């Protein structure tokens, strides 16, 4: 038994040495001016907010082609507010797109975010990039999307990390870490 525990401990230490980033919470604490949520910014990423914190953009590295900067966009969708879309409908649109859109997406998974049962999926959207600048070409953007419901309301946070498809694998772990750090004001 002691031998088994010893090997497990060695394996855990070995794994921690191999994946140091995963074993420590990295990033800078951030909260918008409204104070409605808090999170840890990934190292080197910068945030700016709009409309009193209802919209927050956290910008990271740009794509190798220099036409798109990876970033996390956080939007608070207020139940009953103008333009509010129930999250089931929003998920449906983001996973399937509109007529003529080229959208591929994964299944929706349940995920515990900020102490509530959130939703998570990934999708690819074909766009012409860069936006309004020539030369431009069809490019696939990858989206990591999470929905964080606010307790006892239909309101929710829409958190989306978008990047070029060629680099999206760099951001899956980062996005998960970010979601772990995301806390809403209950």
């Amino acid at each position: 038994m002691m031998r088994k525990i010893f090997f497990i401990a060695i394996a855990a230490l070995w794994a921690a040495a191999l994946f140091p980033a995963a074993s420590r919470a990295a990033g800078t604490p951030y909260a918008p001016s409204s104070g409605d949520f808090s999170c840890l910014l990934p190292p080197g990423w910068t945030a700016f907010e709009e409309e009193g914190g209802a919209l927050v953009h956290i910008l990271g590295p740009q794509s190798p082609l220099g036409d798109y900067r990876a970033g996390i966009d956080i939007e608070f969708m207020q139940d009953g507010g103008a333009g509010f879309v129930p999250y089931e409908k929003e998920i449906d649109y983001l996973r399937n797109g509109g007529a003529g859109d080229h959208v591929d997406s994964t299944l929706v998974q349940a995920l515990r975010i900020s102490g509530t049962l959130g939703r998570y999926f990934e999708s690819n959207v074909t766009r012409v990039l860069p936006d309004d600048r020539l030369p431009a070409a069809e490019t696939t953007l990858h989206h990591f999307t999470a929905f964080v419901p606010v307790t006892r309301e239909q309101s929710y946070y829409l958190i989306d990390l978008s990047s070029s498809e060629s680099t999206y694998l760099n951001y899956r772990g980062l996005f998960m870490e970010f979601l772990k750090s995301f806390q809403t004001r209950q």
Partner: protein
Amino acid sequence: MTVLRGRITACLLAFCAALAPLGAAAQALSSAQQSLLSRYQYQIKPDGSIWAPGSSAPLDASGVEAALSQAAGAQRLKALLQVDMILDQSGGKDNLTPEQAERIKDILRKNWTYFPQAARADISGYFSPEELDSLDAEAAAPTANPAPLVAAPAPAPEDSAPAEQAAAPGVAAAVPVPVLDDSSGADSAQNLSMSLPAQAQAAAPAAPAAAPIAASPQPPAASPAPKPAFVPAPAQAPQPPALLVSAVPRAAPVQPLPAPKPAPTPALPLAPKTSTVPAAAPAALASPALPSSGALHPAPAAPMAAPVVTVVGAPARAVQEMRALAAGSAGKASPDAGSVGFQIFPLPLPSAPPAVSAPDVEKLLQNAPYTQDVVFLLRQIEQKAGLGRNRALGFLLSQIPAIVIAPRRCETSARGCVETQTDARGETLYTIVLSPGPLLVRRGELWFKQDDLIPDAPEFYSRRRLSAPDFKANQGDALAENVQDGPWGQTSVYADGSRRGTYSREEMAGTLLQELLMAAAAQEGWDAAPYYAQVYARTAQEIFYAGEAAQRKDDDFLDPDARLLYQRWENDPNSLRDELAHSLSATRAGLPDFLGKRWDIAASDLSNPTDCELRVSAEGVDEAKARESAMKEDAAALERADLVTSKQAAAADAALSAAAAAFRSDPLPPAQCLSLQQKKEMGRRLALSLAGRAYAAQRKFFGVRK
């Protein structure tokens, strides 16, 4: 009023008559004539030759004469339209307020040279006899640059009667207006240019090579020939930006600040053609509060209350006072600190633009030299636009920008762009260019083919030291093999596989709305924060499209990418901001400071004004580097699309690097530097405010719909 309208009609006819065939020649003109031609996009080469926009040969003597006559006629027409609008607002000449009368006099003064004697008699009632004498004397004065004049065989009679103008040769060729027809394909679309020089050029037959031209005596002031002498700007000192720097007289007379020095341009063509900040801020600005929703950061202490320091006189004194301000003693700055000094004012924001009535717009559309296609687009905006309507149309009425639908003009934009030019008198002239359709090149194999949108403007390639790929779809005289409906509208397919799509008129109207707003941003200075300016303009565009889509019950009038963006915006309006944030912050956008944060004048910035010039200079270098990086990425993108070789791309890279290394930004004197910085700060706050208005308008729009 009647006489004035008669004059406008005469000008229109004279303007049409002036669209005479242009040929090729090299001339030496006075600086005033050169300035006039450069206003209308003519290029004056170092060897003295004059080239019409997009032409392949220089103008000959008659061509130069026609161009001068045409430009003078257009200038005269613009002045009369502006006067007419002021008269309409006042209800007639007898009801003019002193401000309106002064505005009319100012317009007429600036354009006095262009009016023939008969027209001067009609408008002389606005001036006193002394002023008239002065104006006539200035108009008759010889030019500062007595260069040999064009040998004018028969100058176009500017003051001849309309009937005579109508009978003049060349009128019939110039009058027909091209019609925008979505079904006409790329070739017809390429002939839609509505710029004055382009029309003249289009009518030009191939001319023989230029011969040396003998100088002729300068015509007298009363001569109908184009005069080399310009009426100089009225005898008024250059004004500093109206709200940002203001001279406060003290015990001694105060010298007004010189106008801000225009931003230095690099030796190589790195400076962008668009978004030139005008030399002077708009004069009529009021002061609403900045909406709290427009906050960019967790607010620095009371941004709206940030003081603006008026600097008059010795920069060193200003520096001391600013330091005192930063140290907390600004509020105690003694008003009698010296014969010259500074005063602190709050920084107000412009008020919402006044409502623009449909009759005002209709009047302009009936008189202004816009073709039927542009008139259609402007009517669409007047009738259907929501957000941004008054601001866009207000800009249209006040500036009367040239609006053209032409391929091969926009350097980096697929749909439209704003071109600006500053003439010798510091006035900024705006030209809005709309592309009739994108140049497409298909690459890939089998099921993996994709369309690349390729720049079609020759300037794009020359500025990047690249040779332009020779696609038939980019040649005005090539015939299409096939015309088919596709995602990019009616698409002409050429033998080499290149294609030219067509934007629908509804999409072009939305593009025109956006470009009018971006031109207004350049004029009012709120392009200092490109992201917020784009948020406002693009939200206005999407709301316009939403109205159109609701009327048509589909969004098929949009091209594929515009449709995708529109649908995402319709589903989640704030997704547009996400897109803009990710795109404008990337290298390809060429913006080192897409939020305009550098212009955020915090106390820390005011504490070291001596560093202002260095900071502005460094920022100029940053901007040049950002443009260089963007251009390098453009070249790399063409290489990836197999449109240029790796060797060409490497050569372009090296040339652009050398140009950026050679770039030097001239430092500004502290006073000018501060006024420029304050103007930028003003523009940034206005952009923030407008983005807040866009957010509110969006909420209101969707609140109604859902």
